[in-house]
């Protein structure tokens, strides 16, 4: 009944087009399938994908704003650490500068103290700044503060900024507003009683250095007018407001264009810097360029990880194939014993197994001792089999071997011995029978084992760390380092994402070349 007599679409019994009702039936199946996997999907999304994504988007939320404020909010060190991933030296620049900023402000504080001792007390400042009309500026600064410290703004600050003072002393008003907000919100102190940061004095000095402000102060009659006028009178003794020179004094990197360009480049909300970094590139004001030779690292590590994983996979095939064959062809009783031996490592901690290899492989270790005893190597020329890539390959081949043997075994178990017999009866020698008939049928097992071993190897971390020395470590060791030591989570996420992409790519290639339906984990 392959032909339909109707001219229109085929209809099912109830008159609905067959395709529609089929789609409906299938949809129900699909929904059920989706529901079945939904707990796992939700789990994976919540615990895996979202954190990685959020780490990736973690970038510099902080623009260079007000160093002093940042120091007090203790944000400059983080910015420095973050920027240090891009340009080494920035972290120390921020940290040392932060320490020295206080000194600069204190010079100005001393000047104002000499002019009028009341000026270095809280009530003077509170009187000067308290008022109406400066809400815009205050809200502005509040927004910046909450950005910086991720604190919730409380409604009651106990302080409002005077618009008049803000017009008269713009820098000082700004600096004071920052301090006041910080004091009220972060320290939860009373703004009217505390004396402000030394940085506020520097800001006031900056205002007063302007002749226009000097004359405006003379005309000012509000709270604190006397003190301000006294300061203006002594203006000749005021330290120079050459902040550029101060910064240059602290570190000449502050006057180099490179630092500022870097800040600008990384000022945006999103950055490709992590990904570039992960492939030994960097984002500079002039565009993307390769890192200097002594900083290039990750491509080499990716390369090494892939090559060594492949070597490990091939070693596993070579060692695992005969064992799996034996397992599949021995009588049940002996096969079970052998199987237990194969599975035994699974019941031992990975760390213990790796440490055991350490004992075996080290220069004064068991294997070297045996070689020396047998006369293979001289006592003073013991083989270096650890703390290098050899150690990693040996230990990981052993550790991952079961992952090769088990799929191989389960596939070999399904190849009936009659194939080999048939081949032999048809005139094939043992080798031809194996190579032309048995081996091609065990390829799915090799494929499954290789994928398992390769993907496990590529992400291995503990074993290379322990026996790999410096030239036997993998990219995952760097990821672990950035996650737990250097805290460069963005870079770790970028490296992990690239690794994942590479694995996917290889998987795709494998599918293209070998075909993924050629992978079997068993019957």
């Amino acid at each position, binding site marked *: 009944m392959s032909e339909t007599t109707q001219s229109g679409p085929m209809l099912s019994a109830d008159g609905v087009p067959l395709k529609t009702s089929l789609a409906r039936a299938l949809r129900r199946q699909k929904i059920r399938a989706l529901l079945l996997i939904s707990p796992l999907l939700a789990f994976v999304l919540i615990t895996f994908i979202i954190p990685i994504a959020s780490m990736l988007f973690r970038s510099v939320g902080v623009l260079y704003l007000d160093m002093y404020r940042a120091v007090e*909010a*203790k944000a400059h*060190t*983080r910015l*420095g*650490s973050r920027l*240090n*991933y891009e340009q*080494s*030296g920035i*972290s*120390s620049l921020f*940290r*040392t500068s*932060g*320490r020295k900023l206080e000194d600069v402000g204190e010079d100005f504080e001393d000047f104002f103290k000499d002019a009028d001792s009341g000026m270095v007390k809280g009530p003077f400042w509170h009187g000067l700044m308290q008022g109406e009309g400066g809400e815009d500026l205050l809200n502005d600064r509040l927004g910046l503060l909450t950005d910086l410290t991720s604190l919730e703004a409380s409604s009651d600050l106990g302080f409002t900024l005077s618009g008049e003072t803000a017009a008269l002393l713009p820098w000082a008003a700004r600096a004071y507003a920052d301090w006041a907000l910080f004091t009220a919100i972060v320290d939860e102190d009373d703004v009217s009683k505390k004396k402000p940061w030394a940085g506020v004095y520097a800001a006031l000095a900056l205002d007063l250095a302007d002749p226009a402000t000097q004359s405006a102060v003379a005309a000012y009659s509000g709270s604190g007018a006397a003190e301000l006028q006294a300061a203006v009178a002594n203006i000749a003794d005021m330290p120079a407001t050459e902040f550029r020179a101060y910064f240059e004094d602290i570190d000449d990197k502050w006057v180099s264009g490179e630092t500022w360009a870097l800040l600008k480049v990384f000022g945006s909300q999103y950055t490709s810097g992590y990904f570039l970094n992960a492939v030994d590139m960097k984002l500079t004001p002039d565009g993307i360029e390769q890192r200097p030779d*002594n*900083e290039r*690292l990750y491509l*080499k*590590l990716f390369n090494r990880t892939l090559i060594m994983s492949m070597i490990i996979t091939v070693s596993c095939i070579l060692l695992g194939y005969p064992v799996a064959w034996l397992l599949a062809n021995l009588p049940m009783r002996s096969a079970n014993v052998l199987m237990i031996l194969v599975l035994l490592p699974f019941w031992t901690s990975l760390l213990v197994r790796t440490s055991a290899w350490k004992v075996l492989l*080290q*220069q*004064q270790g068991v294997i070297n001792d045996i070689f020396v005893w047998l006369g293979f190597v001289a006592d003073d020329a013991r083989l270096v089999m650890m*703390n290098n890539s050899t150690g990693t390959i040996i230990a990981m081949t052993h550790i991952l071997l079961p992952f090769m043997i088990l799929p191989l075994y389960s596939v070999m178990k399904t190849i009936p011995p009659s194939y080999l017999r048939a081949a032999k009866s048809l005139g094939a020698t043992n080798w031809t029978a194996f190579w032309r008939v048995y081996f091609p049928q065990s390829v799915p097992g090799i494929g499954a084992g290789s994928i398992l071993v390769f993907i496990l190897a590529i992400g291995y971390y503990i074993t290379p*760390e322990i026996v790999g*020395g*410096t030239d036997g*470590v993998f990219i995952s060791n*760097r990821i672990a*380092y950035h996650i*737990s*030591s*250097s*805290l460069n989570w963005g870079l770790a996420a970028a490296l992990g994402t690239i690794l994942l992409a590479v694995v996917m790519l290889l998987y795709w290639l494998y599918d293209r070349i070998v075909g993924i339906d050629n992978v079997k984990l068993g019957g």
Partner: protein
Amino acid sequence: MAKLRAMNEAGNITWDLVDVEGADSIRLCDEGLAMEIDHDSMLAAAPDGTSASDDFGDSIVSDCFIPQIVFSTTVGYRLDMVGDTPPTSICSLFDLDAYPGKRALNKRPLANVEWALLCDGVPKDEIYDVLATSEGQDRALAKLDTIKDSVIWWSAAAETPQLLADGEIVMGSTYNGRLFSAIAEQNQPIGMLWDAQMLDFDGWIVPAGLPEDRLARVMDFLNFATDTQRLADQAAYISYGPARASSAPLVGNHAELGIPMAPHMPTDPANAQNVFVTQYEFWADYRDDIDAKFQAWLAK
């Protein structure tokens, strides 16, 4: 330290008290991760009434730090592998001709770069100035390059005594207390070098933002654990010097071996003839830079 930062980011601090080195305490303090401490009001005074801050003296390297012990990073060597001429200088580390064989060094730059510059001819008092420059850092790494192939890098201080005991290395750096244990308690054929050992402090910080009740418990413990007698007592177990001046005279014998501990302390005058005092503030500031370079160099 990394973990503390992670906890802080996550807003869920599960630690009440953290054991850190001097330089780390400065960094944590700078980053606002550690609580600032008023030593005089929070910690016990010495038995003679000296205030806690005077008693601890210079060991209070940051406002957040509660010092506990003085330790040093130094070099131990295998007695039977150095022949009749045991090393007397830190620069033996770099002398592959006189002392062939593997060395174990810390997988962090601290101490390694200072020793490298010292043995590259930089005067002791200029080392940190040189290290502050990019060229100086490269110079230190270049010096380390000369022995890189012979180095096993450790990440846990216990590895060096183990490697020495196994005869895997001829010498290696670790903390002096570890070497003391291997030599005095386990009778391993190991010698200890007291030359340019890096003196450092170890102590507590309290994570910022602890709730009241937990903070109260922590402070109660700290008050007890860092008093004069307690600091002197810990020296009976391992050869680390107490951070309080008032504890020094109370240092007695080893708890099990019964040998006097004072001569094994890094603070003992005989040992401290050519001590190298770590600049905590330098490391607090430059650690990110030098660490990044060092790790990149290491992985090459």
